[in-house]
């Protein structure tokens, strides 16, 4: 156990699983880097350096640089998975899903069902997502609601280095296709991470803080925003439970519903655009299954229904922040007080 970054945690998970299982291969653009170049072989490891060192350890036969050809990457990975490998394919930015989505939701995700249970597709697709780098409208999206909507895919969205490592190992060992999403703004955060391999199960939310006044559910970077809001609220005597579902397919409804049953109030924080979002989904099942416990409307704090703008001032206004979460919670408490009067 030692302090490691989110990036290192992911790298360690890949390293451990490649070591353990020769069927695990890593595939993507510049996942090694330097193929056909004149420089050092192990210089790159992905644009964010997440896969650095793997090619040195496992060679180019298992750390496979590809041309820019995402449909072929995803399809090749799916075809390899169904025939005996356990590929970890990298999409780089999740924004690029539009050039290769078919191979994921129509092919990999449907094999098991469509073929009557006779196919296994142990495939992991890693991708970066999220705003905050002024990377513009085509490199800053979330898009995880797409994946969560599709039956046959599992969807993992970690918020801490510990979870990232344990969930990625779990993902690689899982026999269904898993979308593993990494928020670019989390790569450098640090946390305690065991050196050895371990797994974090899918479908178990993590309760990061407990308080009786309101339940705040948040994902990925928004978990940290929610925790900041909870800190601020605590200072004025309002106590929030903060829940990170960690995986959105399967999603741990029970933990969320139990908490809402206790607090009676729910705020969902989601960096994505609002419509048909994960925030909507969580609000929807709570409005069904925790209805009678609810003391106030369910609020979603999300990005607006706009593309991600480039200029830092605009991007800052786009990304949900702790102030908005705090305000939403206070509003719910006020509404409630009003109604009581």
């Amino acid at each position, binding site marked *: 156990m030692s302090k490691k970054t989110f990036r290192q945690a992911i790298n360690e998970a890949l390293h451990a699983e490649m070591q353990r299982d020769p069927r695990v291969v890593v595939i993507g653009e510049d996942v090694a880097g330097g193929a056909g170049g004149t420089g050092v072989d192990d210089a790159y490891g992905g644009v964010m350096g997440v896969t650095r060192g793997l090619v040195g350890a496992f060679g180019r036969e298992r750390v496979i640089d590809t041309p820019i050809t995402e*449909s*072929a990457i995803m399809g090749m990975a799916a*075809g*390899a998975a*169904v025939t005996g490998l356990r590929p970890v394919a990298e999409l780089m930015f999740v924004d690029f899903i539009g050039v290769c989505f*078919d191979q994921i939701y129509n*092919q990999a995700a449907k094999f098991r069902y469509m073929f009557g249970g006779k196919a296994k597709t142990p495939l992991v697709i890693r991708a970066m997502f999220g705003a905050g780098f002024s990377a513009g409208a085509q490199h800053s999206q979330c898009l995880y609601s797409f994946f969560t909507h599709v039956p046959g895919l599992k969807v993992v969205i970690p918020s801490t280095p510990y979870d990232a490592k344990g969930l990625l190992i779990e993902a690689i060992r899982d026999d269904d296709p898993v979308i593993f999403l990494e928020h670019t703004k989390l790569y450098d955060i640090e946390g305690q991470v065991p050196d050895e391999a371990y797994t974090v199960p899918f479908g178990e939310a993590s309760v990061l803080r407990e308080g009786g006044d309101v339940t705040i559910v948040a994902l990925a970077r928004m978990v940290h925003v929610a925790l900041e809001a909870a800190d601020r609220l605590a200072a004025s005597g309002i106590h929030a439970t903060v829940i990170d579902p960690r995986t959105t397919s399967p999603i741990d409804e029970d933990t969320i519903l139990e908490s809402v049953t206790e607090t009676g109030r729910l705020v969902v924080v989601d960096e994505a655009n609002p419509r048909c979002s994960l925030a909507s989904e969580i609000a929807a099942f709570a409005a069904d299954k925790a209805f009678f416990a609810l003391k106030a409307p369910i609020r979603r704090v999300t990005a607006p229904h706009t593309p991600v703008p480039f200029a830092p001032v605009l991007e800052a206004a786009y990304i949900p922040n702790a102030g908005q979460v705090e305000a939403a919670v206070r509003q719910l408490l006020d509404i409630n007080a009003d109604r009581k009067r």
Partner: protein
Amino acid sequence: MQMSRETLRTAYRQMRTIRAFEDAVNRAFSSGEIPGFVHLYSGQEACAVGVCMHLDDHDYIGSTHRGHGHCIAKGCDIDGMMMEIFGKAGGLCGGKGGSMHIADIERGMLGANAIVGGSPPLAVGAALTAKTLGTDRVAVAFTGDGGSNQGTMFEAMNMAVVLKLPVIFVVENNGYAEGTGVDYAIGSRDIASRAAGFGMPAEHIDGLDFFAVYAAMAEALARARGGSGPSFIESRCVRHHGHYCGDPQGYRSKEELQAARANGDPLLHFRARVGASALLEATELDTIDAEVEQQIAAAVVRAREAADPSPSALLTDVYLSY
């Protein structure tokens, strides 16, 4: 290329099985017994059989919406196929797939595919498995002339060349993609030459001639198994039926259609060839015809009488979050 009489008989039996299967499916579809969209393979039998005769259960193929022929040639169970097409519990996919999604991973049949251009990247993946695990398996990607225009096809070809994978791309050029003629849709009017530009051996062959397909595949296979990477075969054939069962085919002249059936029958070509060279006797072939006819008729009866899936099967074979 020298072929034993046994091999020839097998080849003919397979082609005949495909033809009889499709004729039976066509009848059952017309009588309303088969649901959904069905695309018949008749006219292309020599392609599937000429290619798959070289493969065994450990090799892989990826197929298309017009996949019955590929399935049969790759050894899928006839009864299981027919039941699948009828939507029955005993079907190869338990009735969940249907005509456009028959698969049998155990036999290396990675699935018919209702997404045009869907299969080539998957076949490339199967070839990656073979290369990575150091087996001598190969993968074949079947695509249509129309599908050969899809971005996935080009990407798959480049990837296969870059990674030198044991995969063979077989484009069955039957002249049409739905109602669009091949000369319109292929800008260069030459599928194989376009593929050659991706850096692999590519040739056109007469896909009505079993022997031509068989020979081209033998070469491609030797390259693949020998570690020399991918090859491409454009196999020119015809489509005896409409795009789908029930297609009135207004976009195609009656004369052309008649000519396609009369002169473009791989089974007649085969019979003529083996007859001329006295390799097999017509009576032998007639016997095969009769046997196959019986087998298929029995498959239809079994499929017709088979049980529907239990409605509870709706929720199996998938992780459920709901």
